[in-house]
């Protein structure tokens, strides 16, 4: 079996041979990737079910279709993305060609997480391939069945010289990080992100970090409780709450809480039936360790469980659970929950709620449910987060036109659609000057004089372009 350094050398040699540069090559690889997904949809769904008991619907929507969508986007737009972008010039450079050229970075590393093990690995991969890089792919070992599948499929469909899957746990990943990459794309936790950044600093490697955080969900003003409950339940309990953009906790007034809880209860029954554990549409917690962590939070909470609470260790099952009367310092407010537990904190005023969210780290997403646009506006303008969505959850992720990424502790850099292509490209400024007008150049040569300076001021100012 190849060692990590052998893999890297192979990819670097391939990159230096410039085989990934032509558009045709990138298109072929992306088309092959599309075939890989299409041909193996059933295996993908099965692997995701093995890892997370992911319902087929969720697997198709959030792991297959979203990837296909990104592939369509890349294939339709690759030609235009690769075009030089001409820019405006000042008078002194009017006769020159000035443009920005997107160039590949080289050999990049993509480290995927376990919660959406296909999507969060393959969507960045699409950007990296489209941008002309060679890629080392490191799937999460926690979602073992998907890890196996990816390891088997990638070499079958993509160029073995340019794209390689490297497997393993923490030890292997740390060893991998000692190598020099031209970009590292990491999706996961803050703790590991620090390790990634420190390793990147040694080689001055640029990094994209897609992390998480506690995504608040504020519900204020006039609100259609039933509609809100539908969307809240869907986005919270999708993938059993194991989404980086799941609404983590709710802030609302007592009255809203009193209206919301029965609505949540009803929606849960509509969605999953009266015995949720038997519903094929509810996922499970990924590993016993994660299950134990979540149960620990639930056991330590000082709030009141009003919906759910049932659990089954052997099945790694935790029922969709709603906890009310949760205080700011509760166990459920300590860290990102990443599970099917929804704490509701009762705060009467919108201003107080906004204040509370400001005491926390910037999350990946920020949600507000309200029929009043003034409430939505207030929350938008007084918060900071990776992305923002009002009156729904998660779906803003599915729009390739929006940059998807964090800020502060939720990460930096972004991707999806064109943003993914840019994340893995170097924007090289290119200027092609002519040989003429050397006399004009004389203005800048010594001996310097005030007169020359005045002329220069005029020819290099942005105003001077409007004359031509």
């Amino acid at each position, binding site marked *: 079996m190849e060692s990590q350094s052998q893999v890297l050398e192979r990819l670097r040699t391939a990159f230096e041979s410039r085989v990934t540069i032509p558009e045709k090559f990138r298109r072929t690889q992306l088309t092959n990737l599309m075939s890989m997904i299409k041909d193996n949809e059933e295996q993908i769904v099965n692997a995701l079910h093995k890892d997370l008991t992911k*319902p087929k619907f969720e697997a198709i929507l959030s792991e297959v279709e979203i990837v296909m969508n990104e592939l369509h986007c890349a294939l339709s737009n690759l030609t235009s993305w690769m075009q030089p972008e001409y820019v405006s010039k000042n008078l002194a450079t009017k006769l020159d060609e000035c443009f920005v050229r997107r160039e590949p970075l080289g050999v990049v590393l993509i480290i995927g997480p376990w919660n959406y093990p296909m999507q969060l690995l393959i969507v960045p991969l699409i950007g990296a391939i489209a941008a002309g890089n060679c890629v080392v792919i490191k799937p999460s070992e926690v979602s073992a069945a998907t890890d196996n599948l990816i390891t088997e499929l990638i070499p079958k469909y993509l160029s073995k010289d340019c794209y390689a899957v490297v497997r393993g746990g923490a030890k292997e990943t740390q060893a991998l990080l000692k190598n020099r990459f031209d970009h590292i794309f990491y999706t996961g936790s803050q703790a590991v992100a620090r390790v990634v950044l420190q390793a990147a600093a040694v080689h*001055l490697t640029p990094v994209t970090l897609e992390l998480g955080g506690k995504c608040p969900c504020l519900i204020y003003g006039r609100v259609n409780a039933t509609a809100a409950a539908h*969307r809240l339940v869907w986005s919270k309990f999708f993938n059993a709450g194991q989404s980086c953009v799941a609404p983590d906790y709710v802030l609302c007034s007592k009255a809203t809480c009193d209206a919301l809880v029965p609505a949540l209860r009803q929606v849960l029954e509509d969605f999953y039936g009266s015995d949720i554990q038997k519903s094929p549409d509810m996922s499970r917690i990924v590993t016993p360790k994660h299950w134990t962590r979540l149960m620990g939070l639930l056991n330590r909470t000082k709030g009141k469980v009003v919906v759910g609470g049932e659990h089954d260790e052997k099945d790694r099952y935790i029922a969709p659970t709603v906890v009310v009367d949760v205080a700011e310092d509760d166990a459920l407010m300590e860290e990102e929950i990443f599970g099917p537990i929804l704490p509701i904190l009762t705060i009467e005023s919108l201003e107080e709620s906004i204040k509370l969210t400001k005491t926390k780290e910037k999350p990946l997403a920020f949600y507000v449910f309200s029929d009043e646009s003034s409430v939505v506006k207030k929350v*938008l303008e007084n918060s900071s987060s990776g992305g*923002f969505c009002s009156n729904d959850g998660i779906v803003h992720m599915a729009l390739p036109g929006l940059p998807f990424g964090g800020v502060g502790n939720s990460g930096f850099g972004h991707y999806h659609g064109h943003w993914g292509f840019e994340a893995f490209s170097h924007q090289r400024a290119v200027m092609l000057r002519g*040989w003429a007008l050397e006399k004009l150049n004389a203005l800048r040569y010594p001996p310097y004089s005030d007169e020359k300076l005045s002329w220069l001021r005029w020819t*290099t100012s942005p105003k001077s372009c409007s004359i031509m």
Partner: protein
Amino acid sequence: MSREQQAVARARKAFETGRSKSVEYRINQLKNLQRLFSERQKEIAAAIKKDLNKTEVGAQFYETLGLEGEISLFIKNLKEWAAPRHVKKNLLTMSDTVYIHPEPLGVVLVIGAWNYPWAVTIRPLIGAIAAGNAAVVKPSEVCVHTSKVMEDLLPIYIDKELYPVVTGGVPETQELLRQKFDHIFYTGNSTVGKVIMEAAAKHLTPVTLELGGKSPCYIDKNCDISIACRRITWGKYSNCGQTCIAPDYILCEPSIQNRVIEEVKKCIKEFYTDNPKTCPDYGRIINQRHFKRVMAMLEDSNIAVGGENDESDCYIAPTVLQDVKPEAKVMQEEIFGPLLPILPVSSLDEAIKLINKGEKPLALYVFSPDNKVIERMRDETSSGGFLANDCLVHYSVSALPFGGVGNSGIGCYHGKFSFDRLSHLRGCLVKKLKMEGVNDMRYPPHTLKKLGWARFFILNTVDVGWVGRMALLAALVMVAAVVIQKYLL
């Protein structure tokens, strides 16, 4: 609390008051900065003369002219840049509002360098102010007089709580780096760049690193060597070679080496007179440490022009080295001084190979009348920026991103790039609680039929005009009616 901690805490408090949110406020601050440059040229020039021996005209041309242009550009465009940017939607979000909302990051740290102290310290500051951030400004301590002027003048013109100037050396910088920032913008060398990145890692802080490298300059033997050498001489010896994008070394065929040497010699005389030491337009090496560093590079190379030096004055004459080998001392690190080595190469191929052996530089220059040569050089190498048939001037085009790649840096700025780099581009989806029926297809219990619809609606992006939008909306409402009937009733 240390002085640095206090400055950062005050800046954060000032940021949290929200006063830098309004575009009007930011534009006012930029206008005040503009006034600083128009009112205080004399003090700025006097300090630069003491630090780098630049003339007043030289200082204006190389430092403040660019800044004034940049500020004007920002004042003109800020409203547009800071406005929500609408993007493509998919069918299901047709009636929603989807846009990117540029927002400030918070408190930015700007660490300046000493070679163009105003340009590389204030230019990032302009971007930080425009994006609505607070910014702690740390000028380079190497430029003793200029950092004092910055410390004195900036608080008079711009908000001194939001944009504090913190002066000091290594210990003060290290103390600053222990604090939490929302972005660190550093201009300097790659060794310190790594230290900055490591410090930033603790707080998960994104960084922009404007570093350097050895910017190669290839001269095609068929080009107009006289014009090429004029432009190269200017690019090389401005600021005594202490420019991150100065042409570091020349690659050319042996047959034109003597001609190149002659032409450069001629231009040196034309620009800096027979005795550059007495010419007011020729600069000095910043300090003795760098003087010694640059002089040491001469050890194993042949001097074709110049070589005169005076340690007490930190003066090194404009110097050209000939027949330099890749193993020579002068080729081991970025020169950042007035030594111009010429490495003879037998062909464009050899030049490209040699360039690719080194780290990716901040700039790459090629002089040739042949577009094919230019394209090959551009396609087969990588660098921050690329400029054909001149030196340095790509820096002055605000619409071009200025930044490095690989060892020459991370991120880019200038103009709108600065604004975007120091903003958080927040993706926003503003929906209403209506049309709940349409959402139904994504809710459990899941059926294959619903999946089919969801596949179509949720995930296809649309790019149609208004008429198309209305037609689709009508279709959507119809579908919603059907779905509501089928699944809810």
